[in-house]
């Protein structure tokens, strides 16, 4: 009950915040943060819930962005193009996931890294379709719907907010479903999970396809907001950036994914002046988080809540004494 109230307040705040602080720059950062949050949540499905580290997630982001942009430039409504892009990306996920996820161990990480490079190479070299390094321009905005006209940044913000809420809902539902429990078992120990009758390969591949589809939706949202795509955005460093956000936030946690996405997006804005040191700082952050705080921000938050709870309880017992 208390949790629901908190959630409702949070949503109200997210809706109200940009209305009162109408500032294009701030709204822009919030939109980018929302897109990053969707990406991190999508990575969390395969790397958090299922425990399979993917190092090529920017590939699905790129597939979603380019597929949706190209389809809509052919005259398809943006809304339908976005959905088709998600389906294409899920199929690509199946194609990569099927051979690799049947295997145990680190093969998945290597294969996704390779896949990320392939997709970047194709986007960069298939000039006839993607216009290669020159970049793709002339992408249409989403068609307006009653009440929302997406040429306004603030309206686009609401769209992203809605998507973020949907993906959070999807993640939570998935985590609590039969599939979520199967994935938790796989993450803890594959051999034990298989012994208990969990169809390991099926669940891993399904989780990966979902993960790819959600990442593609983030890609479509990005493409129809920025209206210009360049291969640079989807290279290997972007995949690492998504993973970084997930690690900082807390791998496996939905709250952590949201926090991580927000935190790193805002931090990147502030570190812009120190752009050349930014990546080194991130590298050091990764090593530190893994060694000293493997549960990330959400783990720290839980620890703090635990301390607070204990302190509260102690206070209560003191009073009763």
């Amino acid at each position, binding site marked *: 009950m208390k949790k629901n109230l908190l959630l409702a307040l949070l949503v109200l705040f997210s809706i109200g915040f940009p209305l009162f602080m109408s500032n294009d720059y701030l709204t822009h950062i919030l939109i980018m943060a929302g897109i990053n949050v969707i990406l991190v949540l999508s990575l969390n499905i395969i790397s958090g819930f299922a425990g399979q580290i993917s190092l090529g997630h920017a590939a699905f982001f790129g597939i979603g962005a380019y597929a949706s942009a190209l389809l809509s430039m052919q005259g398809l409504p943006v809304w339908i193009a976005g959905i088709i892009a998600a389906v294409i990306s899920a199929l690509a996920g199946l194609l990569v996931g099927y051979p*690799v996820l049947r295997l145990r161990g680190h093969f998945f990480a290597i*294969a996704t890294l390779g896949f990320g490079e392939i997709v970047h190479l194709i986007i960069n070299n298939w000039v006839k379709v993607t216009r290669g390094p020159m970049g793709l321009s002339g992408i249409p905005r989403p068609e307006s719907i009653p009440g929302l006209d997406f040429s306004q940044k603030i309206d686009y913000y609401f769209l992203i907010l809605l998507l973020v809420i949907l993906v959070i809902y999807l993640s939570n539902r998935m985590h609590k479903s039969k599939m979520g429990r199967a994935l938790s078992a796989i993450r803890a120990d594959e051999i034990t999970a298989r012994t208990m009758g969990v169809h390991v390969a099926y669940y891993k591949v399904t989780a990966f396809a979902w993960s790819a589809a959600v990442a593609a939706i983030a890609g479509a949202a990005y493409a129809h907001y920025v209206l210009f795509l360049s291969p640079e955005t989807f290279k290997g460093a972007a995949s690492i950036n998504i993973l970084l956000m997930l690690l900082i936030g807390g791998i496996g946690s939905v709250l952590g994914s949201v926090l991580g996405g927000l935190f790193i997006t805002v931090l990147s804005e502030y570190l812009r002046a120190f752009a*050349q040191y930014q990546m080194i700082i991130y*590298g050091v952050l990764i*090593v530190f988080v*893994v*060694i000293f705080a493997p549960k990330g921000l959400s783990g720290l938050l839980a620890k703090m809540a635990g301390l607070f709870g204990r302190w509260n309880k102690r206070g209560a017992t003191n009073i009763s004494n």
Partner: protein
Amino acid sequence: MVEFLQQTINGLVMGSSYVLTALGLTLIFGMLDMLNFAHGELLMAGAFIATTLVEVFHVSYLVAIPVSMLVVAILGVIMHRLAFHPLRNSERVNLLVSSLGVSIILQNAVQLIWGPDPRNLPSPFTNLQISFGGLGINQQRLFVVLVSILLIILLYYVIQKSKIGIAMRACAFDMDVAKLMGIKANNIIMFTFAIGASLAASAGTLLAPIFSVYPTMGVMATVKAFVVVLMGGVGNITGAIAGGFILGLVETYAAGYWSSEYKDVIAFVIMILVLLLKPAGLFGKQVQEKV
């Protein structure tokens, strides 16, 4: 025919650099069950150190190679102590992630020190040609292949015959039993990191005069080395040697006769095929995992 021979030599050059990079990776992978994503960065560091030695300190290229190998070996050990050793009892995935962090740090540190622009490492062999009939062979390419083969034979001998090599194989086979037999596992792991790092550095310094030297050159090297490791089978030295040369040759033929833009895609197609058809590697046996 001449073109084919030319391509074969180029393939052997690429192949020998893949072998040198993959050997260290497969040793660590087999021993610690760890993917070291910072391995290619050691190759890059080796190339940069050699370039600085030659350009700034006017050291001869032939001296710069062993010096940079030594420096990078020390760098490899430091990397292990700071980023990997503290994680020895945690999940394997954490080691992978930590190595990603190290890779980002090294890449960007080098970029800060030397700048992002590509550089050239001058070598006394670059402009010399040997010709057989219509076939012209660049001496640097010949030098790369010869030195690589020498290093590979040396490593093979050390691992098969020397006491420390036997200890390394024991650790890779079963770390706990090796410890019980009185092997100082920590020292062996450090030694393995040092050897792997210096081999990667040798690949970097050997290839640098042919291609240019830039901070992100290690990324592709890491990826290719992983493909080679998978082709050969994890922890399999002979497999890595064969896999590296096969990949180098196939890639070069593909670039020569098909498309040079998509030659990097070949490596991944090979990798996916190997994982699909022979997941234990081209030369490995499928082993049932013990619980």
